[in-house]
């Protein structure tokens, strides 16, 4: 397929859309599916046929619409009218919507106010296709301008130009560490010889994070396109997507998307009739958090135990099978097409001095609007939680926001005005992380939260290096003692010492950050620790404090 054919497909699809009287998008991300979204979509399809509307009404399964707690969500667009969003829909409700379409009367209840801050304060780049593009149809993606960036790249840009645009955008790795993407690309591009690989890290491991899942499920082509552009930029012909086995829907949609893209010559041999070849294979993760660490991920793609190795050498120099390997995460790749389309400089107008663009967050925990949001970098944390997130339910008090999962930290109320930015978060002992943002109120005990994360790291430690394997065990033991009310000041000192040890001496990122939740809670909630140790009291009333010897 060449550019002209692609243009024809787009034209055909756009015409079909313009001829339709209504487009009804049902959120088909895992969240809404678990509350019955699939049945709603089936009911819509059946009703369309029953009402003889097949020619004019299009039903799509689409990416995450954001308000997960209110699913299944349904978005109805009619001509140029403002779209309407319905929450908590059912098959019966779907029938009513379709029945009302010919007369133009839609149900009044279950409408969601699209002017509330949750929608108006977001800035959607990565998630812009949600509600517009059917997750399983490449034609939809093409009609929405998909693969234009790849087309332009192959037609107009040298690989160095691509790297320059990405560098110019200021994009930083969205997987958590925030390494400048352009710099990484240029390192890989400079690494000599053929046989370079590119990898998409879709092993979204942080508990409480589901941004990548939503992107993969809702807009898989966006990721494929970003990877193809990256492959062109660094001279790779083979790519892997390492996706969590726990995301079956994402895997299915990716498989479909790859097949579609290959059929249209957007992947595979001589893409768009250029000299550029690039194929993508899926690798299914098997449940090991440590495989989010890039050297462990590489080992896993090679079919081995996911055990990290020391860096240097970095994967950019010696990665998969010893070859230079570019590894980025899902959200990073999802940002590439817009950067190429609108220019790196345009992208860089969003965000802060050192953190550009937008960030997708998964809001969860004790917050009204649990779900997925995309905001410009630099938005104060408090705005995300209270304006967009709707604040804390049940008239409780905000206590902490946890970012970065087991590698991150807990941010207290005193820092709610902090702009969300890599450096700012690191400055108060947390990290941006991949985007999980879990809100806690006074019903959460921070010592128990630290213990929870330590248990996670203990169980997910690969066991290779001593400080991580054995240090997490000991720290977990000490934290457990604290939550049982049997710890002493000496235990607290040991905990602090071990936290330093694992941070400084562990082999990989998992161990190096395993103590972050401990360190940040020690820093911001020291009095809670002292209450457990000195007064044998759990202020949140979570810990049993029964004085039993933990074992």
């Amino acid at each position: 397929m060449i550019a002209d054919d692609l243009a024809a497909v787009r034209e055909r699809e756009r015409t079909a859309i313009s001829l339709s009287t209504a487009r009804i998008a049902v959120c088909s991300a895992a969240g809404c599916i678990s509350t019955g979204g699939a049945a709603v979509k089936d009911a819509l399809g059946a009703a369309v046929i029953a009402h003889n509307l097949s020619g004019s009404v299009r039903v799509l399964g689409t990416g995450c619409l954001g308000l997960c707690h209110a699913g299944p969500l349904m978005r109805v667009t009619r001509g140029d009218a403002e779209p309407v969003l319905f929450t908590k829909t059912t098959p019966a409700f779907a029938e009513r919507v379709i029945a009302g379409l010919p007369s133009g009367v839609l149900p009044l209840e279950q409408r969601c106010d699209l002017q509330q801050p949750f929608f108006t304060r977001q800035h959607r780049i990565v998630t812009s296709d949600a509600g517009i593009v059917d997750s399983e149809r490449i034609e939809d993606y093409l009609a929405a301008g998909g693969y234009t960036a790849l087309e332009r790249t192959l037609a107009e840009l040298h690989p160095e130009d691509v790297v320059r645009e990405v560098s110019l955008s200021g994009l930083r790795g969205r997987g958590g560490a925030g390494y400048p993407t352009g710099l990484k690309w240029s390192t890989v591009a400079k690494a000599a010889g053929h046989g370079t690989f590119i990898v998409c890290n879709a092993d979204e491991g942080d508990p409480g994070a589901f941004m990548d899942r939503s992107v993969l499920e809702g807009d898989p082509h966006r990721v494929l396109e970003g990877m193809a552009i990256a492959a062109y930029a660094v001279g790779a012909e083979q790519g892997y997507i390492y996706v969590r086995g726990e995301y079956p829907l994402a895997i299915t949609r990716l498989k479909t998307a790859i097949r579609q893209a290959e059929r249209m010559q957007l992947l595979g041999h001589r893409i768009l009739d250029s000299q550029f070849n690039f194929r993508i294979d899926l690798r299914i993760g098997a449940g090991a958090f440590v495989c989010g660490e890039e050297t462990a991920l590489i080992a896993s793609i090679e079919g081995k135990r996911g055990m990290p190795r020391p860096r240097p050498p970095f994967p950019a120099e010696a990665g998969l099978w010893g070859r230079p390997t570019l590894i980025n995460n899902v959200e990073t790749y999802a940002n590439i097409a817009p950067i190429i389309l609108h220019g790196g400089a345009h992208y860089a107008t969003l965000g802060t001095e050192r953190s550009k663009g937008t960030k997708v967050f998964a809001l969860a925990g004790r917050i009204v609007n649990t779900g997925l949001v995309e905001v410009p970098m630099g938005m104060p944390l408090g705005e995300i939680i209270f304006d967009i997130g709707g604040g804390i339910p049940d008239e409780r008090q905000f206590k902490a926001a946890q970012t970065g999962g087991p590698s991150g930290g807990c941010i207290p109320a005193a820092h709610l005005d902090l702009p969300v930015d890599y450096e700012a978060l690191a400055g108060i002992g947390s990290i941006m992380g991949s985007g999980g943002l879990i809100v806690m109120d006074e019903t959460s005990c921070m010592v128990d939260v630290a213990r929870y994360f330590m248990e996670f790291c203990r169980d997910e430690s690969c066991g290779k290096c001593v400080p991580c394997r054995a240090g997490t065990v000991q720290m977990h033991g000490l934290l457990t003692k604290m939550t049982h009310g049997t710890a002493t000041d000496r235990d607290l000192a040991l905990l602090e010492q071990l936290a330093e040890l694992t941070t400084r001496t562990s082999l990989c990122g998992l161990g190096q950050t395993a103590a972050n939740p401990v360190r940040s809670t020690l820093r911001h909630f020291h009095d809670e620790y002292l209450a457990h140790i000195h007064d044998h009291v759990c202020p949140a009333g979570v810990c049993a404090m029964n004085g039993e010897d933990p074992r």
Partner: protein
Amino acid sequence: MSVTTLTMNGTLVSAAEGATLLAVAREHHIPIPTLCHFEGLSEVGACRLCLVEVEGSNRLQAACMTKAVEGMTVTTNSETLRSYRRQIVELLLAERNHVCAVCVANHTCELQNLAVSMGVHHVRYEPQAPQLSMDASHPRWILDHNRCVLCTRCVRVCDEIEGAHTWDLMGRGRHTLVISDLHEPWGQSESCTSCGKCVRVCPTGALFEKGTSATNKDPHFVTYLKMAREQKLWNR
């Protein structure tokens, strides 16, 4: 072969190009403790005992895997490093059931010797006391998981020198275990050649010979064997 010059603990030292910091230190008799490192086997950088400070980097580097670079300034023995090393040894001692007193490797154990050299007289961490088994199915040797430090020397020597790959690791984290074949009794292993190299390289009493109350290991043998094979040097 070109030569690199670097500073180690304030002294200028020379190094062959591509040499690791550990090799440079050993050549100049600068002690750096190691446990997973074994001359002649690949490096894994797992024990973290050989971590050193490299000026200009806030990350500690494993001396066994870091190449000497011209002009590098390295500290191998700061108070911080010593404290970390002691903690690592203590963590290992608390992890499984290291009862030196009744161990075949008492006084020949590398872990115990590390503890002695670092002045580790006691362990501040709670002993985990896991319930672990022994595999005595092999006619000559015993594997006692209670004393294993998961250094993987046995795994590597079996794979890299003997070429049998009888050993590997199963499970992960604190549940990691050295296994033979499909976690079958060692004595029933189809791949084991009974060469005994794993026993020779084991730093503790985890792998030992039946019928001995003290193990007489010869860890240099494997290094010697590798030299003999690859360089035709039969120098002991």
